[in-house]
């Protein structure tokens, strides 16, 4: 049986000094090994929700917090963010402002050092991660002298250092060039499929994630509007049409005009290949 990795139950949060709640009664569950996309317009509460997953809310950001978040059955109210680092790796949007050490290698070692891991184990773990993410060339470089994509790669490596089962990413490709963004997303897919990491990512480039994401959660003004597998979400009326990724959007337009769904297929094609196959079979 697949275990529940994240259980979010009736979570609300209001930042101190804010006028309104950033999250309103959000409830959903993520099973171990799932790849979840978190979508929503700017200011819809995506970052706030993600920060609840490793206890930054309510431990680091003060405010009114209600409901519970459980990570593998452990409530985030009981352990603080540093403790949760073993379960949840967190990667932030700004590549530059999350690397505090003087070299890439040091940054990867940093969480292990914090947990008092013996030196020889730190070295072997760093070796492992550098090989996994192909970072040999930048291993001894200073974070200042590498590109944004490489900085983000460094942050992912650091988030993976303690081998957490869950990886949370907050718009990590927003500051990257399209090529680096695709590279990072492909890498995340690999971490999910090969290394069984549960991944939850807030992302604007939905198009590039459809071939590997399992589920999508759509937030609007702090409320969870739709949550489910991609098919269900894209067919749902709650999901705004202007947020639909290119291929499903094109297909649904075609469907409206000439009726494709329900004929031979009941699923919306998500990728170029799927759409071509659907059209070809017709």
């Amino acid at each position: 049986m697949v275990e529940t990795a994240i259980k979010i139950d009736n979570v609300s949060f209001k930042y101190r000094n804010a006028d309104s709640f950033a999250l309103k009664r959000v409830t959903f569950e993520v099973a171990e090994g799932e790849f979840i996309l978190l979508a929503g317009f700017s200011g819809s509460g995506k970052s706030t929700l993600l920060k609840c997953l490793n206890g930054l809310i309510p431990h680091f950001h003060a405010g009114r917090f209600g409901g519970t978040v459980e990570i593998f059955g452990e409530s985030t109210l009981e352990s603080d963010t540093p403790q949760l680092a073993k379960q949840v790796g967190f990667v932030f949007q700004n590549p530059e402002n999350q690397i505090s050490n003087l070299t890439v290698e040091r940054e990867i070692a940093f969480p292990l050092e914090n947990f008092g891991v013996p030196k020889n184990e730190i070295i072997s773990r760093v070796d492992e991660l550098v090989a996994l993410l192909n970072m040999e060339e930048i291993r001894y470089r200073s974070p200042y002298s590498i590109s944004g994509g490489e900085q983000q790669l460094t942050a992912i490596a650091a988030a993976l250092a303690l081998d957490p089962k869950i990886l949370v990413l907050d718009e990590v490709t927003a500051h990257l060039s399209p090529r680096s963004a695709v590279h990072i997303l492909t890498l995340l897919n690999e971490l999910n499929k090969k290394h069984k990491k549960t991944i939850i990512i807030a992302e604007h480039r939905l198009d590039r994630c459809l071939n590997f994401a399992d589920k999508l959660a759509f937030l609007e003004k702090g409320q969870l509007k739709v949550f489910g597998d991609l098919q269900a979400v894209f067919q749902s009326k709650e999901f705004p049409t202007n947020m639909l990724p290119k291929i499903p959007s094109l297909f649904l337009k075609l469907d409206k005009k000439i009726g494709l769904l329900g004929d031979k297929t009941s699923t919306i094609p998500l990728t170029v290949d799927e759409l071509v196959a659907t059209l070809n079979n017709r």
Partner: protein
Amino acid sequence: MSLKILEYFNYLEHKSPMHYIDPRGKTLFIIAITCLTIYLDQIIPMCIILVALLPLIYFGNFMKRWLKSLLFLIPVILLVVILNALFLKIDYPTTIAIVLGLRLIILSGFFGLIFQTVSPDDISQTLIKFKFPYSFAWAISTAYRFIPTLAKETNIIIDAQKSRGLQIDRGNLFKRVRNMIPLLIPIFATALRRSWQLAEAIESRGWNATKNRTYLYSLKLKWWDIIVILLSLTLFALFLYLAIADVSLPFWMVYKIPERFELKRLFLIAWEWIKNLFSK
């Protein structure tokens, strides 16, 4: 323009043999050398120290930059030497003035070399070795880590406000200070934002998760560090011996510029000569 400064911050990526010496050894060495250089007031010992300094500077990859900085320093040093030679009211003023000049050259070399090869990382690790709290050491190396970012950002901010018509170097002092406001506020605001984001990031990486933090790298004395430390201690002992026992140096080390070559005398002769030249 100012981005050139940033090359210095890529320091961790260029290693020289001098970089591998333990910072504690280097600090001890510079203390000993400084004491000796200041205590000794003879030309020959100064020259010996200077000659000994050259290979160190060479191996520290510092020769080029040192010579460049000397280019600016030499006029100052010459001025110091000449003024002292002319106006010091002691025996052999020229000798003392030359010693003074040599001292400045030597100290600029040693201090430059040490600044060049001791990284903030070394400093923070030394602090950790001396039982300072880790957060303190972390703050030092992180501040350093963000200097180039800050410099880059400051340049962008200056460009942005110039593009909105801000003229930074116009007007009287009061106006110039006022002109700094549109630069300083964004600089502080972004720095503040950054510190929040950094705090979130390190929390998420397990900051202070355990009391017994380990380190990927920590300072360890190698055989060559022991040599450096012993050498420094020997030099320091020599200094103490010379200073406390008040022994005089061996005769071959004492050389004084003969009286007939005193700068003051040469100067007066030249003066007379010129006067004669014009009176004829």
